[in-house]
C-alpha cells in the first residue's frame, strides 16, 4: 500500500515539526503538594483536616 506509506511519512513529518517546536513549560504538578495549602474554611483550627467544617446545613 504505497499510498499508506506516504500518509505515514506525512504524519511523521508533521509530528517531527510539532515536537521540534514544542517548548515544555516547567511542570506545575511536579512542584508537589503541601498539606498546609489545602483549603480550609477555618485556617487556624485543629485538628485538621476534620476541623475544616463550616456553613453546611444539609
Amino acid at each position: 500500500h504505497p499510498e499508506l506509506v506516504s500518509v505515514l511519512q506525512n504524519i511523521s513529518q508533521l509530528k517531527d515539526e510539532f515536537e521540534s517546536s514544542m517548548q515544555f513549560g516547567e511542570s506545575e504538578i511536579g512542584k508537589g503538594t503541601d498539606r498546609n495549602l489545602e483549603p480550609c474554611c477555618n485556617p487556624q483550627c485543629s485538628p485538621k483536616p476534620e476541623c475544616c467544617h463550616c456553613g453546611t446545613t444539609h
Partner: protein
Amino acid sequence: ALPNFVLLFADDLGFGDLGFAGHPTSLTPNLDRLAAHGLRFTDFYATSPVCSPSRASLLTGRYQTRSGIYPGVLYPGSKGGLPLNETTIAEVLKPLGYATAMMGKWHLGYGANGTYLPTRQGFDHYLGIPYSHDMGPCHNLTCFPPDVKCYGSCDVGTVTVPLMNGETITQQPVDFVNLEDSYSTFATEFIRSSAQKSQPFFLYYPSHHTHYPQFAGWKSVGRTLRGPFGDALLEFDSTVGNILHTLKETGVLNNTLVFFTADNGPELMRMSRGGNAGLLKCGKGTTYEGGMREPAIAYWSGVIKPGVTHSLSSTLDILPTFARLAGAPLPDVQLDGVDMIDILFNHGAGQRKAMFYYPVDPSEKYGVFAVRMGKYKAHYYTRGSTHSDPNPDKDCQIISLLKYHDPPLLYDLESDPSEHYSLSVK
C-alpha cells in the same frame, strides 16, 4: 453589539453518553435541542485524557505541555497551578468590557492564599469547587436526596470538599444536593445582570457532572432509567436548560454563542457508574479515541446554521474563535489553536490540519503518543490506564503496558472510528 459567550464543559463524559448520540437511557432534552438546532461536531478533541491538562488547554488555547499542567492532575494541596502569566479566555475578553463569571469545577490550582483561583485568572465572579469533587472524603456525605450517601469513599485523609464564592469558602463540605440549584441561580443572576447593563459577558460553566461520585438534587433524582449517572447527567442538562431559558428571557439569545463539550472521555473503571464512549475505543486516561474525542455543539440562534460537521477541531480552538468573534487581540504567545469561523459559519473544512495526542504524563523523551491527520491516525505508543481498566478490551486495561510501534499503528478513522483494524504499512 459584542457577542456573548457561554462555554459548557462536562466532566468525564463520553462520546456515547448523550441522548442525541444514541444512548438509550440518558435523558438530555436540552443538550439534544442544542444539537438539533446547532452545529454538532463529530471529530472534536480534548488535548488530554485527564482533567487539569485538558482544562488548561481549553482556557489558554495551548497544549498543556507549554503551560506546565502535566503530568496527571492538580490536588487540593498542590503548590503549582495554571501560571498567572498564561492568558485565559476570560483575560482575552475582559479588556473589551466583558463581564466574566465561572461556576463549577476549576481544577487549575488553588495554591497559597488562593494564588491560582479563577478570580486571579480573569473571572470577575466565581462560585464552585476549585478541584474535583471526589478530592475529599465523601462517604458520609449525601449525594442524592433524601439521604443516599455518596458511592465509595473518594479521597480520604484530606480536607472535605469546599464550596467557594469568589475567594471565600462558604461551605465545607459542600452540600451536593443543593449545589446545582446554587449554580443555576448564579448563572441566571449573572446573565440577567449583564443583560440589564447591556454588557457583553462570558460565562464558563465547567460542571462537576458526570464525574464520580455522581450526585443530583430533588428535581433529577430517580428520573432516568440510567441510574445515578443518568440522574447526574439530567441535572447538568437541566442547568443547561435554565441557562438557555434565561438567555431567551433576557433577549440576548440571538447574540450569544453557546459552546458545549467535555474535558475527557468516560471513566470506564467506574463501570455502570462511569460514562460511555459509544463506538470509540477505551476511555479516560488513554490516547485511544475514547479518551480524548468528545461530543461538541456550537449553538447560536439565527446565526449558526444547524447541521453536522466532520471538520477536525479541538478545545484549543475555542480561545481563538471567541477572540476573533469579539475582535480581541490574541495573546502574544505560541498558540496551538486556530479559529473555527469557517466551520461555524460556512460549515467549511476549517484550519486545523492535525491533532496531537499527549498521554497523561507527557515527556520530551516519548513525545506525542499519536497523531491524527485528516482521516488517518497513527499510534506511535499505546498504553492502557487504570481509568479505563475493567473494559473487556485488553488494550484499555492497566496490564497493557507502554508499547512502541514501529511502524506506527495506522487507522482510517472515517471507515473505522473504533480503531479495530490497523492498516498494513509494513
